[in-house]
């Protein structure tokens, strides 16, 4: 329960429980947690432009709640509406993630022994299916599509070559670089950067509007 309330880091919690059971030292567990959660640097950087102008305290609290699920739900929501939505963030981070995670953790503590084989209930496919499904909701252009495919391929390759933890981070770093290789002319074909039509792709507050558009947000 303390892991879920204080650390609030799903994958690292699973790993830590296994390490504790095997008698691994706390410094090693801390190091592994640091590596496993390094992907949050990417989430934090990607969320930062949306939080521009928000108070330090709000951003500091938001950081504590920035999980895979909160990031995925929120970034999809912000991009869909084309602006920051504080209620949307807290809803995704607290109501749909923090509370269910801790309730489920408590239920697991109390009833976990009754579940003989979680795989038989299909529980193991929920996380990757949710992440894949949420990735699909972010595919609004060719750059996103290329970034996602490259992220997946590079992630698997690096996982096999080194370790799944490194694989996820490698995919998250290199995927966007591959996406940026899509020529801007092709990427802006349906939603030029800085226009109203780009709200789903680049709809971040503060992005410079430097492409002429007509009154419907289309390139002119």
């Amino acid at each position: 329960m303390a892991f879920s309330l204080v650390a609030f880091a799903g994958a690292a919690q699973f790993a830590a429980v296994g390490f504790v059971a095997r008698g691994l030292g706390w410094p090693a567990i801390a190091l592994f947690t640091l590596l496993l959660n390094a992907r949050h640097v990417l989430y934090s950087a990607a969320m930062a432009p949306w939080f521009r102008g928000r108070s330090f305290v709000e951003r500091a609290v938001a950081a504590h709640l920035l999980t895979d699920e909160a990031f995925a739900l929120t970034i999809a929501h912000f991009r869909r509406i084309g602006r920051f939505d504080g209620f949307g963030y807290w809803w995704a981070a607290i109501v749909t993630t923090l509370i269910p995670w801790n309730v489920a953790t408590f239920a697991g503590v109390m009833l976990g022994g009754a579940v003989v084989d979680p795989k038989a209930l299909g529980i193991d496919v929920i996380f990757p299916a949710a992440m894949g499904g949420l990735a699909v909701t972010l595919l609004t252009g060719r750059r996103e599509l290329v970034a996602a495919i490259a992220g997946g391929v590079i992630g698997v390759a690096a996982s096999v070559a080194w370790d799944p933890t490194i694989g996820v981070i490698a995919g998250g770093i290199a995927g966007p670089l591959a996406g940026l290789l899509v020529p801007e002319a092709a990427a802006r074909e349906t939603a030029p950067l800085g226009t109203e039509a780009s709200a789903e792709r680049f709809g971040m507050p503060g992005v410079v509007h430097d492409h002429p558009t007509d009154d419907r947000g289309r390139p002119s």
Partner: protein
Amino acid sequence: MSTDLVPLAVVMWAVTYPSRAIGLLNPAIDRLPRRALAYLQLVGPAVLASLATVNTVVQTRNGQSLVVVGLPWLAVGACIALVAWRRNLFLGLLVAVIIAIAGRGAGWE
């Protein structure tokens, strides 16, 4: 309920929080060039696809990571296809779980 691992939970928070806060609390993010902002907007699809693919395809056995073809491919693939088609994540997750339960009930791993 034991409280022995509460200090470890605090240590895990202490090494996790900085990675979550470094972007949100860093004012330099506001001054990034347009190309860097474009990069950050592609992080979401890339890292989520990477998480999904690695957790579906890669398994670690005896300390070695392997690409394993199995039921999760079908379950996760069905979820992704349904979300792309119907834009409904709940429906996709439901079908993925049903495929996993049915497949394992039939003895497929």
